C-alpha cells in the first residue's frame, strides 16, 4: 500500500493520495462487537454511550435527587462504574 501511495505521490496526483489515505484509515476502524447492548459497537461508541448516560444521569440528579440531600459525587461514582461496565461488556 505504501509503495502504491509513493508511486501516486511521485506522479503528483494529490486526489489519489488522499483517496488511498482514506482507504487505509477505513481499515483502521476499531473492531465492532455485540455485547449486552442491542447494537454492534466499537470502543468509541461505548465511550460515547457512557458519556451520554453520565450527562443524562447528572441532569436527572440535579433536578430530583440532589434536593433530597444526595451529593452529585454519588452520581459521578455510579456513572463511572456504569461506564467501565459498558466499555468492557457492552
Amino acid at each position, binding site marked *: 500500500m505504501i509503495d502504491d501511495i509513493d508511486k501516486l505521490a511521485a506522479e503528483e496526483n494529490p486526489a489519489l493520495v*488522499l483517496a488511498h489515505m482514506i482507504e487505509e484509515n477505513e481499515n483502521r476502524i476499531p473492531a465492532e462487537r455485540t455485547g449486552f447492548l442491542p447494537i454492534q459497537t466499537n470502543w468509541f461508541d461505548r465511550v460515547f454511550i457512557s458519556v*451520554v448516560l453520565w450527562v443524562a444521569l447528572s*441532569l436527572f440528579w440535579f433536578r430530583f435527587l440532589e434536593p433530597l440531600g444526595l451529593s452529585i459525587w454519588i452520581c459521578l461514582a455510579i456513572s463511572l462504574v456504569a461506564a467501565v461496565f459498558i466499555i468492557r461488556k457492552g
Partner: protein
Amino acid sequence: MHSKRLGWLLLAPTMIILFFFGVVPFFYVIWVSFHQWNPFAANPGKIFNWAANYRQVVFDAQLLASLGVTFAFVFFAVVSELVLGYLLAQAFMKDFPGKAFFRTIHTLPLIMAPIIVGSIWKLMTTPSIGIIPNLLQSWFGYNLNIGQSALAAFTVTVVMDVWHWTPLVTLSLIAALVSLPPDPFEQAQIDGAGKRQIFWHITLPMIAPAVVATVFIRLMDALRTVDEVLMLTGGGPGSATRYIGVHIFKEVFPRTNYGYGSAISVVVLYLTIVICWLLYVGLIAPRNTKKG
C-alpha cells in the same frame, strides 16, 4: 514517507480551520458554562461556580417551556418539509413544460438570509398591511393576528420554516431518486406491485440514507433557529414562539448572562446529538450491520 507528508499537508488547511472554528469554540463554551460571567457587571471577570449553571438549567421553568415548544416546532416543521419535499422531488422527476423554470423558482428561498425571510413574513402577516391576513379575512372571514394568538404565531413560524427549507429537502431527495437503478422498479411492475407497495418496499428503503441525512440537517437547523423567529414574532406572544435559540439569545445578549447561556447551549447541543444518534441507531445502523 514523502507521500504521507503530502497527504497530511493536503489535509492540514481543513484540519486547522476545523480546530480553530470548531474544536476550540466547543471547549471554550463548555469551560464558560462552568463560570458565572457577566462582562458588564460590577465584577466583569469569570467566577468558577462548578455546575451551578446546570443546576439552574434543570429548574428553569421558562427554559423547559422553551424546549417543549421547540420540539413541537421541530416535529411539525421537519415532518412537513419531508412530505412536501418528497412530493416535489417526485414531481420534478417527471417531464412537464417549464420544469427548469419552476425548479429554479422553487429553490429561491434557499438563497435568502434568514433575517430577510423573517422580515418578508413579518410584512406579509402584519394585520392591516399584510397580504396573508387580508386574504384570510376576505376568503374565510378568519382574523389572523400573530401578535395576539399564540397558535397563529406558532403556525406561521412553522409555515415560514417550511417555505424556507423545503427546497433543500427537495434537492436532496431529487439527487437520491435520480441515482436509483431502474431494474428493481421494472421487476416490481412486472410482478404486479402497486404504486404504494413500490414506495414502501423499494423506493423508501433505497433512499432511506438520503432521507435520514436530510432529516439530520433539518433537525439540527430547526433546533437552533433564531433569526427568522426573532424577526417575525420576537418570541411572542408571551412565550408561544420563544424557541430555545431565541431563549438563549435573550439570555446571552440583552441580559449578558454568558455563563448560563453557555450552559443552556451545551444542554441543547447534548439533546441534538442524542436525538441524531438515536435516529442513526434506529434507522441506519441496522442496515449497515445487515450488509456487513
